[in-house]
């Protein structure tokens, strides 16, 4: 055996090329290059967010400085319109009329930013008005309805899975509910349009089949998996020792759930709800398909509404590139972006707090 080894060793040369020395740092190009490339690509995510900011805001910007002559020239310069539908021709014609009009008289609609606060959203008319109030109100109404429906049901379901359910039941229930996240919103919108609208109309007997209530419930469906999953995470990351201590003191499972686990998980649940709001607020397809899309100023939940994002979705394909209407739609986009950005920052902040607390509790 030993003899073998000696023979082998003498036959074997160092497998490492040359003599390895470590007393001088070696420059390795591929390592250096890989790191630079990887960092640069990772930076792309930041760049995209910044670019979104820039380009959405850039297209929105003209409404703040555009006087009527600028608006006119920009329309004359760029006459293509976007979208695949047949209806666009007629729209362009309406635009042309509107153009002539604003050339001839001092209509109040000439400076678009002055009409943003008005009560009428009527972008395609002789005297276009871009009042965002009905859109804001509509979005708020739908969001509120969706939230009132989705938040309690998701949080309760999360409590069931993390507190009451046996492990085997939990293993099934959790993925099934998360399945809902896999439904494309156009499918949920279609379901709302075909089924929910009819069912609710039969129950409540309201006039317009599509309204903020139907839309709100459908959007709530889209928000359920988000709120549910994040709440569940928050609940399960409450340290076990809390639960055990409470149960050990003779508290019931319900008392433990509501007076020990729930308060400890509040920041996480808050983050879940905030992200849910962000999702509802920005949801487009369901809004387009299920809310009726009428820009009305009304607080009746059974009236049709037009949300901010649905307005973009419905009208962008038919506007003239670069004109006032186009800029106003981008302005609405900017508002949506700022809002969801803020919501995310808020949730992130609370989420961080929650994690820190979680670790402190563990120690």
């Amino acid at each position, binding site marked *: 055996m030993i003899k073998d*080894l000696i023979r*082998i060793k003498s036959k074997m040369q*160092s*497998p*490492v090329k040359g003599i390895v020395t470590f007393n*001088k740092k070696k420059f390795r190009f591929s390592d250096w290059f890989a790191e630079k490339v990887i960092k640069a690509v990772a930076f792309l995510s930041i760049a995209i967010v910044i670019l979104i900011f820039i380009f959405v805001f850039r297209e929105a910007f003209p409404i703040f400085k555009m006087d009527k002559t600028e608006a006119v020239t920009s329309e004359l310069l760029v006459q293509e319109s976007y979208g695949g539908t047949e209806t666009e021709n007629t729209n362009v014609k309406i635009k042309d009329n509107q153009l002539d009009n604003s050339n001839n008289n001092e209509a109040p609609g000439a400076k678009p930013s002055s009409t943003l606060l008005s009560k009428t959203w009527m972008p395609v008319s002789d005297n276009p008005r871009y009042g965002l109030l009905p859109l804001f109100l509509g979005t708020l109404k739908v969001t509120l309805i969706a939230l009132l429906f989705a938040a309690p049901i998701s949080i309760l379901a999360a409590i069931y899975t993390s507190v009451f359910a046996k492990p085997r039941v939990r293993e099934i229930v959790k993925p099934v509910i998360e399945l809902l996240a896999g439904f494309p919103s156009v499918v949920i919108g279609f379901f709302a349009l075909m089924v929910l609208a009819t069912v609710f109309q039969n129950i409540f007997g309201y006039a317009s089949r599509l309204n903020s209530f139907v839309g709100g419930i459908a959007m709530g469906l889209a928000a359920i998996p988000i709120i549910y999953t994040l709440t569940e995470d928050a609940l399960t990351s409450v340290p076990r020792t809390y639960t055990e201590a409470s149960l050990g003191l003779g508290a019931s499972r319900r008392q433990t759930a509501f007076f020990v686990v729930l308060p400890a998980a509040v920041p996480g649940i808050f983050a879940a709800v905030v992200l849910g709001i962000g999702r509802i607020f920005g949801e487009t397809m369901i809004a387009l398909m299920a809310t009726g899309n009428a820009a009305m100023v009304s607080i009746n939940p059974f009236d049709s509404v037009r949300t901010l994002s649905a307005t973009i979705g419905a009208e962008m394909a038919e506007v003239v590139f670069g004109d006032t209407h186009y800029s106003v739609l981008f302005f609405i986009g900017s508002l949506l972006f700022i809002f969801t950005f803020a919501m995310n920052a808020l949730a992130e902040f609370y989420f961080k707090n929650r994690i820190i607390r979680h670790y402190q509790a563990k120690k």
Partner: protein
Amino acid sequence: MNDIKVKVNDLSLRYGTNPALKNISMNIPEKQVTAFIGPSGCGKSTFLRTLNRMNDLIDNVTIEGEVLIDNINIYDKNIDVVNLRKKVGMIFQKSNPFAKSIYENIAFGPRINGINQKSKLDEIVEVSLRQAAIWDEVKDRLFNSALSLSGGQQQRICIARTLAVNPDIILMDEPASALDPISTSKIEELIHELKTQYTIIIVTHNMQQAARTSDYTAFFYMGDLVEMNTTEKIFSNPSKKQTEDYISGRFG
């Protein structure tokens, strides 16, 4: 004493603010087996990992003092850590073969050194497996996954993998702690044979193993090096009371 391969001067290490090693100084002789013993948490693994700068991978570690290998301070600014690790190989407590074939495990080191010639790789693989005394057990299934082997075989694959890079020093952190007695004695035999060519440093909790395999023994206690001497001396006539208590199993 043989020539000194590793010379440690006044080495201290902290994890964050927790001191894990306190002013360690020692000389480790070339082509001998040196064993590190001591109660759990005393810093044996930490010390071992300072010898090939594995601690660099952990955040928040502060190291003071120097470690000279062949008279070069490996904590010097200009040191090439990658090449240092080629000279100072390491075997871990839990065997950790890659999820690749036996052949590819052994060829990993040569390949990253730019050896791609089939005949050369074949030779290195065979020699390394023979040196690790596992060639006969695996020669018919070189292209099976290394994970299909038993724990003891996996550990010897890891040793062969390290030998294939042809290091000067091999660090072993409790290489046999997870193995059955037969595999353990095979590893011990192997250590005995390898020391003709390599400087070996082994961490162990097993007093008999330290006594059987090593020429020198160092006893650590709570981050201090209490005593280092020939294994014979440490086990027959230790100069410190703590060492004696530990060896005779009176604490821990």
